[in-house]
């Protein structure tokens, strides 16, 4: 073919098989008793990344300054990369012949397992950043603990993702401080954003039977262990940002982890899944 000779790579299947063979052996992946909880938990990990990545990607081309536009796209890109790994492993654990793409593009809202926090609309940059910071602070502690998971596959993904999420947290906490302690307007907006999303943060730490099962298998930490670490980071950053922690309950809104979502998720999926739904079976 003229001048674009290496577009078609015929050996991708071989490359994928070789990569799969090089992966660590993980007894949890084939554990039948653990499967329903492990699968559900992996969907939670993947769906949080996918939905937050989707929301952040909505900013592409519309950021307040070029450097932020690049940083937002970069963050979204990292999160979509994590999604491919988590949902890929979820599909493997399920063993029903579904792929990561099938899970992302062919499940309806009630089968999505992400936190309500990450599906909230972007609002202004204050809401986008505050939502990201509160999630990053949790995500960072969770991935740090997961690098010591009894599941080598989980630990590998966590180690890769942690490198990127460390940077996400560094960036979002830095911006929360700067904007909280910036102008009167930026302070007011950041405080309003904090008040708006605060009631959605408790769901991150609300453990249920799925969390208990993966914690017992040594795959994931007890969520209650992460709470004081998160509270310390959030407390320090908000203090430096001259923002006050809202008095309202932080666990006012939950249910996302079990598939009970806000009205917003349906619209996200309608947009995200459009092509796969409109042209079933097509290859892209």
């Amino acid at each position, binding site marked *: 073919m*003229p001048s674009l000779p290496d*577009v078609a790579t015929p050996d991708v299947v071989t490359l994928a098989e070789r990569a799969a063979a090089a992966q660590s052996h993980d007894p949890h992946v084939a554990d039948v008793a653990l499967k329903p909880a492990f699968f559900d938990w992996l969907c939670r990990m993947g769906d949080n990344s996918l939905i937050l990545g989707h929301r952040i*990607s909505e900013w592409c081309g519309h950021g307040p300054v*070029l450097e932020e536009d690049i940083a937002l796209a970069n963050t979204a890109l990292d999160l979509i990369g994590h999604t491919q790994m988590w949902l890929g492993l979820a599909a493997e654990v399920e063993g029903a012949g579904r792929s990561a793409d099938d899970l992302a593009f062919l499940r309806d809202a009630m089968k999505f397992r992400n936190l309500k926090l990450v599906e909230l609309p972007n609002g202004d940059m204050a809401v986008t950043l505050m939502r990201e910071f509160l999630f990053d602070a949790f995500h960072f502690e969770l991935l740090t603990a997961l690098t010591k998971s009894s599941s080598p596959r989980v630990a590998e993904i966590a180690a890769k993702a942690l490198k990127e999420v460390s940077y996400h947290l560094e960036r979002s906490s830095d911006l929360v401080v700067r904007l909280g302690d*910036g102008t009167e307007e930026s302070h007011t907006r950041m405080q309003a954003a904090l008040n708006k999303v605060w009631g959605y943060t408790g769901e991150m730490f609300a453990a249920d039977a799925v969390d208990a099962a993966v914690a017992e298998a040594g795959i994931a930490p007890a969520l209650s262990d992460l709470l004081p670490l998160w509270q310390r980071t959030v407390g320090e950053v908000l203090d430096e940002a001259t923002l006050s922690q809202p008095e309202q309950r932080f666990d006012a809104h939950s249910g996302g982890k079990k598939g009970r979502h806000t009205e917003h998720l349906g619209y996200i999926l309608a947009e995200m899944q459009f092509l796969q739904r409109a042209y079933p079976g097509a*290859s892209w």
Partner: protein
Amino acid sequence: MYAQMVKSEGMKSPEEMTPEERAFQERVDRGEKIEPKEWMPEGYRKTLIRQMGQHAHSEIVGQLPEGNWITRAPTLERKAILLAKVQDEAGHGLYLYSAAETLGVSRDELMEKLHSGAMKYSSIFNYPTLTWADMGAVGWLVDGAAIMNQVPLQRTSYGPYSRAMIRICKEESFHQRQGYAIMMKMAQGTPEQKEMAQDALNRFWYPSLMMFGPSDKDSVHSAQSMAWKIKMNTNDELRQKFVDETVPQATYLGLTVPDETLTWNEERGHYDFAEPDWDEFFEVIKGNGPCNEERLGARREAWDKGAWFRDGLTAYAEKAAARRAASNVAAE
């Protein structure tokens, strides 16, 4: 190629040049690079600011038509690739604004000129992206046309511009490949996918040819820019090269270029092809294209709505600097 109809100053003969101008022209002729703090004719500086500014604006406005499909990309991999590509475009904008700043204009000034309409961006980004195949067509045709101009610009006389182009070209050639890969999937896919691919080619063919700008073989502006090596080829040369390379690629895809007059001219060793509708081109340049309002509107809105954010960061930086100064005084 994201700079169209950039005005340059009238050209002087060696006798009309001042000794400084003559020495400058001799350096350019020898292939030396001109660096930011060195003497340069005002016309050279102004033309470069217009050209690099327009190129930078095109990169960031160019995020919008492709950004339009990020949330609807059909697979996780396609989504990641598209995000990375659009992020690259923003990065190109950043290199080019920074390179333009070395000529003594600030990024904010350039932005203001974009928002007021005093500076343009490439006409191509005023066309809509209507189906997923457009992500293929934009990469293949639009980035393909851009590369035709940008590859020779790697040898341009202005050092910072040349270095920015070298980095940009590496990424653009990857972009073109990913666009072509999408087209290949679509052209070999279901009948609906093939229809989308053909439709995308039909819609993007002539606007891509317009990207090179109208014929400039007799243009005084082009002659001066070429003498200064900030324009390396005529618009017609580049357009011909693009057609010659792209037609066989379309054939390989099994798609039909929407030009009934297209024929291989054995004698010339080039394709003969139909000119795009230049009336349409001038209408789009004037602001009457299908998406001018949306594109410029989106950029203005992002800037206006981001004012509090930029102000907040500036205020913090000032406070932090004052605090550092105060603690230094206290330490002494």
